[in-house]
């Protein structure tokens, strides 16, 4: 049986560093993964032509995909590490809402997505909303 064990709360800088690590690694991971999926093409169409195996092969043979997944794995372990030291009510809203904004910025500059006024407004609304909801 595992007994709940309260961890001592780290300082502000340590908490900021943990959250920044999650935000940066997950932004890098999501942008690289999105770039990989765009380079592969519509997965539904690939599956229609060459089946599920063909779709999985298309994803697994893309080097960009592995770069993205490596960063997402780093983000995942950074999240596990932070959840072990900080409260969920701090980690979840801070990392989720900040990641939305950093992703919108990264998508505009690296993926050249058309992040128009509509999408900026949505990113900011969802960012504040996620913070309020998860806080």
């Amino acid at each position, binding site marked *: 049986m595992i007994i709940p064990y309260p961890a001592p709360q780290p300082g502000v800088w340590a908490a900021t560093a943990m959250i920044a690590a999650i935000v940066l690694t997950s932004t890098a991971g999501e942008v690289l993964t999105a770039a990989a999926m765009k380079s592969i093409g519509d997965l539904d169409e690939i599956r229609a032509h060459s089946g599920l195996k063909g779709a999985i092969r298309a994803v697994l043979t893309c080097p960009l995909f592995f770069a993205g997944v490596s960063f997402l794995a780093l983000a995942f372990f950074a999240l596990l*590490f932070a959840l072990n030291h900080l409260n969920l009510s701090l980690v979840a809203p801070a990392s989720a809402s900040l990641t939305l904004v950093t992703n919108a910025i990264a998508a505009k500059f690296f993926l050249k997505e058309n992040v128009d006024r509509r999408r900026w407004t949505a990113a900011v609304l969802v960012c504040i909303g996620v913070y309020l909801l998860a806080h």
Partner: protein
Amino acid sequence: MAHERLSARQYMILGFVAVCAPLGDTCLSRGMTRLPPITLAHPATLIAAVFTPWIAVGIALLIGFFASYLTALSWADLTYVLPATAFGNVIVALLSRFWLQEPISLERWTGILLITLGVGFVAQGPSLTERPTDGEQSFSPSKEPAVQLEQEQLR
């Protein structure tokens, strides 16, 4: 800007993206808070954590999320798919209110409203940035006759 509407199947995949992510995160959180503190001095304890039941269920849900997330990214922009992920938090909050009868504070209702508004904004726009695939699409139709006329005059 003309754009293809998403099919019912594509909306269903976005729904999977929305639901699996917050449920998986909740399982992970539940699993991790039951473990003793983990330090960087013993990273192997993080690997061992993966095989505890709540974390294993969380990871299974997140694999489902990732498969549908990758599919969505193959036909939609990252800035279109991400608000869908955030909308999952709204679904979980509403489920906990009406199914588990948990109270929701005014602050959280405001959060739900803002996310729903944000998702509504994005969903009304195009799902994919249109890119010119060859040279002829980079000219606007009004400029094309002028270019042709210039070329004819040169001949």
